[in-house]
């Protein structure tokens, strides 16, 4: 036995058409990070088999009645120790040029921001791509990732670009989707038992 997998399964609120899904994926594809605006991360859809590409075709996305796509998150990071050294160098250079003894706190913060942006523009992003497989007709979707932060971002992205709401597969969705109103009321009125005492 091998292949240990971790994932979250969702129930999807509705069944969009193939065209709606494809258009939603293309609209929600991952874009470039706008470093000039101080942003250091971006997310969105990428191809399943090659998450570095967003050149989608229906042949890649739809296979055997399933939708295949990646949810990718790119994040640019400047290590704190690197930022500290570059900032120190920049501050010393400004002090030397101006003949001043020290900089005001606000000036230093402004310089730190500039230095960070300059370093970000030279950095390579950390890229994480998570597999997504969606059985559209069954309204079942799996994201192969369990990070809470990634899940939240993915759920919001699916809502924004595909117009669907995702509910994680758990006891509450089983009860909501499988029981009628009267059985649900009965379940909600049950009281806990104690197996140890048999009561």
């Amino acid at each position, binding site marked *: *036995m091998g292949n240990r997998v971790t994932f979250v399964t969702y129930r999807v609120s509705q069944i969009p058409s193939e065209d709606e899904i494809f258009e939603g994926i293309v609209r929600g594809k991952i874009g470039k990070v706008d470093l000039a605006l101080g942003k250091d991360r971006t997310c969105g859809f990428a191809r399943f088999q090659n998450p570095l590409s967003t050149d989608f075709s229906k042949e890649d996305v739809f296979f055997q009645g399933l939708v295949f796509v990646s949810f990718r998150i790119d994040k640019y990071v400047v290590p704190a120790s690197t930022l500290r050294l570059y900032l120190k160098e920049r501050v010393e250079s400004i002090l030397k040029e101006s003949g001043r003894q020290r900089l005001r706190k606000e000036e230093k913060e402004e310089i730190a921001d500039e230095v960070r942006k300059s370093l970000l523009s030279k950095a390579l992003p950390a890229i994480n791509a998570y597999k997504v*497989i969606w059985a559209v007709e069954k309204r079942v979707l799996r994201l192969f990732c369990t990070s809470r932060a990634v899940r939240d971002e993915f759920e919001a992205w699916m809502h924004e670009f595909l117009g669907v709401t995702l509910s994680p597969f*758990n*006891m509450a969705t089983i*009860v909501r989707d*499988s029981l009628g109103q009267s*059985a649900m009321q009965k379940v909600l009125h049950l009281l806990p038992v104690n197996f*140890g005492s*048999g009561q």
Partner: protein
Amino acid sequence: MSDLLDLLRRLEFLGEEFLTYLYVHSFLDDGGITLGDGRKIEVVAERMVALQGAQGKSDSTVVRSEELSESEEARIALKIGKKVTSGQFLFAIQGEDYKVVLDKDLCIRSIALPALETFDPFEQEVEVFEKIGLVEDAIESLFLDFLEKRMDQSRWSKEMDDITAWLRSGVEERR
């Protein structure tokens, strides 16, 4: 979504009761549960079980053992009123074994799948997707069957008797 979270909180005790029922049943009747529709799902608790008492996390026990059925520690924890909050279960479905770590919300934390039958990478993805679906269907069927018993006083009373009898039995009797 907040309605579902609220529902999940209200049902929390049922998730613990279900895992406890699954844990004990996995050592009864040759490790299988026969559903109302006659299907039998084989399930065996193995290697790890986490239990919690009324005090919450400060009152928890984690038992790791190759032979959980003989674990006195887990049995004593159950006897003093603790319930299973997560555990590893082996499900035998369509002749194949799946090792599943399941928690009290019925969220699958991980699955060790059986060997895949396909070789093409894309077809393997489809196979993994479908195999996970088999496990989720089994868990859903077991939970709905448990709820039916739980809502039926006479059936539940018999379940409680079986579980209590197992808890009170000695290791030798259980072999």
